[in-house]
């Protein structure tokens, strides 16, 4: 190069070039091992825009998983490893703990069966405790109603099936198994208060249970409330306040108001018009309904398929105003979905996922606009839980 008077910027560049070539002026990057083993932790409380995607890993059911995603950034935050025939995590209302009913075999896929409720610390995702429970929690296509917390988090209720039907009651304060409630002919658990829940029975009636502080139970059976023979309701009900919204295979909504000792179905209504129903439109999926108390609104995955397609995925979401029972919006998802979920805040995100794909799609729930997609979320993702 020709040496002549250089402009300052060129001089600086030249000096830097020399430094790089010479290698003496820049310090080495600090060593990570000097800081010891570092493990990430999570903020507590969880953001309302975080979502847990639960996965029963159908081809390898001994390896159940749950994945935590930040809906605002699309960042993958962490994992839980949750054993055989996993259903879903339950988040404590104080944001400190995550409960997970789990099943293990002494030799992985055979041997002695043990069921536990694992408690995970929400900030570290480490095991904070374990409660042994009768080894009979129901193994089925995951449902939110497989396990629930009572409204004050005091009792954790788990549906058992072997094939006798019962409910395990766990006291979360004492961290122990309290009792098993016989619920012959009835399935799953739906909380209705701090000390009450119901199960749905095979004839369309409900088994209402009132608990006392010791986990003792008083049971009442109602008359049949659902039409089982003609158009049964699915298990995938959602709740706003005192009302559980059940939807039938054909798309009829049964708003159910239930307490410790009584229950009533409010006027039913259809997600579809007569013409739409005739054209085969109906809800479908594994978690096809979601609600948010803003509005309040009900979101449903819809598809055209007619009879016996109540578990089919859909690409359309219909949005209903629950106070007027009118459809206020329709939009298309980016791709097929078997599950949707809403965050619980006032500016909600809508999440959608397909059990046979692994992309989590995140939308503005108010507009249906796709905000971001997160790839490689799980193997057979099923239901989603938001704080």
């Amino acid at each position, binding site marked *: 190069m020709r040496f002549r008077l250089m402009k300052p910027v060129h001089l600086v560049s030249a000096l830097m070039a020399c430094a790089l070539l010479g290698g003496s002026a820049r310090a080495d990057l600090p060593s990570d091992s000097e800081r010891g083993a570092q493990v990430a932790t999570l903020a507590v409380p969880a953001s309302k825009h975080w979502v847990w995607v639960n996965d029963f890993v159908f081809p390898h059911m001994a390896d159940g998983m749950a994945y935590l995603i930040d809906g605002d950034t699309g960042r993958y935050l962490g994992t839980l490893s949750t054993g055989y025939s996993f259903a879903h995590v339950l988040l404590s209302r104080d944001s400190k703990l995550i409960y997970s009913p789990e099943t293990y075999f002494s030799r992985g896929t055979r041997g002695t069966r043990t069921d536990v409720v694992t408690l995970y610390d929400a900030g570290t995702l480490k095991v904070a405790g374990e409660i042994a429970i009768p080894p009979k929690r129901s193994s089925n*296509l995951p449902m939110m109603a497989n396990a629930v917390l009572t409204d004050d988090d005091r009792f954790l209720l788990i549906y058992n099936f072997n094939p006798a039907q019962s409910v395990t009651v766990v006291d979360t304060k004492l961290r122990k198994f309290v009792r098993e409630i016989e619920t012959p002919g009835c*399935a799953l658990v739906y909380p209705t208060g701090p000390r009450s829940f119901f199960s749905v*029975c095979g004839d369309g009636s409900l088994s209402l249970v009132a608990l006392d502080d010791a986990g003792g139970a008083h049971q009442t059976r109602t008359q049949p409330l659902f039409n089982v023979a003609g158009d049964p309701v699915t298990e995938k009900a959602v709740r706003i306040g005192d009302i559980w919204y059940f939807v039938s295979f054909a798309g009829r909504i049964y708003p159910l108001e239930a307490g410790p000792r009584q229950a009533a179905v409010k006027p039913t209504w259809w997600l579809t018009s007569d013409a739409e129903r005739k054209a085969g439109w109906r809800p479908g999926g594994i978690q096809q309904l979601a609600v948010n108390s803003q509005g309040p609104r009900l979101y449903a995955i819809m598809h055209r398929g007619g009879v016996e397609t109540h578990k*089919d995925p859909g690409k359309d979401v219909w949005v209903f105003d629950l106070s007027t029972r009118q459809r206020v919006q329709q939009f298309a998802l980016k791709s097929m979905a078997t599950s949707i979920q809403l965050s619980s805040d006032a500016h909600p995100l809508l999440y959608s996922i397909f059990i046979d794909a692994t992309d989590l799609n995140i939308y503005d729930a108010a507009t249906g606009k796709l905000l971001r997609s997160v790839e490689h979320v799980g193997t057979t993702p099923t239901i989603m839980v938001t704080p």
Partner: protein
Amino acid sequence: MKWLDALSENSARALARRTSRRSVLAGLGTFLLGAAAVPLLPVARGADSKPAGDASGAAAAPGTASPKADPGDPSSCDYWRHCAVDGFLCGCCGGSQSVCPPGTDMSPVTWIGTCHNPSDGKDYVISYNDCCGKSACGRCFCNRNEGDTALFQPGQSNDYNWCSGNSKANIPYHCSTARIVGTAK
């Protein structure tokens, strides 16, 4: 369920369901159940003595029916007995529509349905016994929901893992059979 209707809107959905890019799960992961006269068929608990009375009906031993009488490919989702199957077909896993693969245990408790045999025009009671004790086979997934109900009616729900009914069967679900119990008359 118009599985084969290539012209319907469902075809893409049906195709997606049967030809997952991972070849393991197409569409909706659910469990297949069925009921059969487990104590009486050759493969079931061989040491059990035949009880005084039973409800097995007269079922042909597996593999003895002529192809014409029992038409179709038992390893195919479209096989007539699979009208309400949900899971991996044992025929692709070392067993058959009536026989569990080596080293698995047949669960005696199960889900039962009726399917129509197009060859003889009869309805048959089909028992979808699961084979259990190993992790999932992962091949030939098939899901059809004819007559399926919610978990509230266990006897007609294919969403339960019926490997849970017997301590010997050890809950891990491997694959599903479709065994004839008798004619539905």
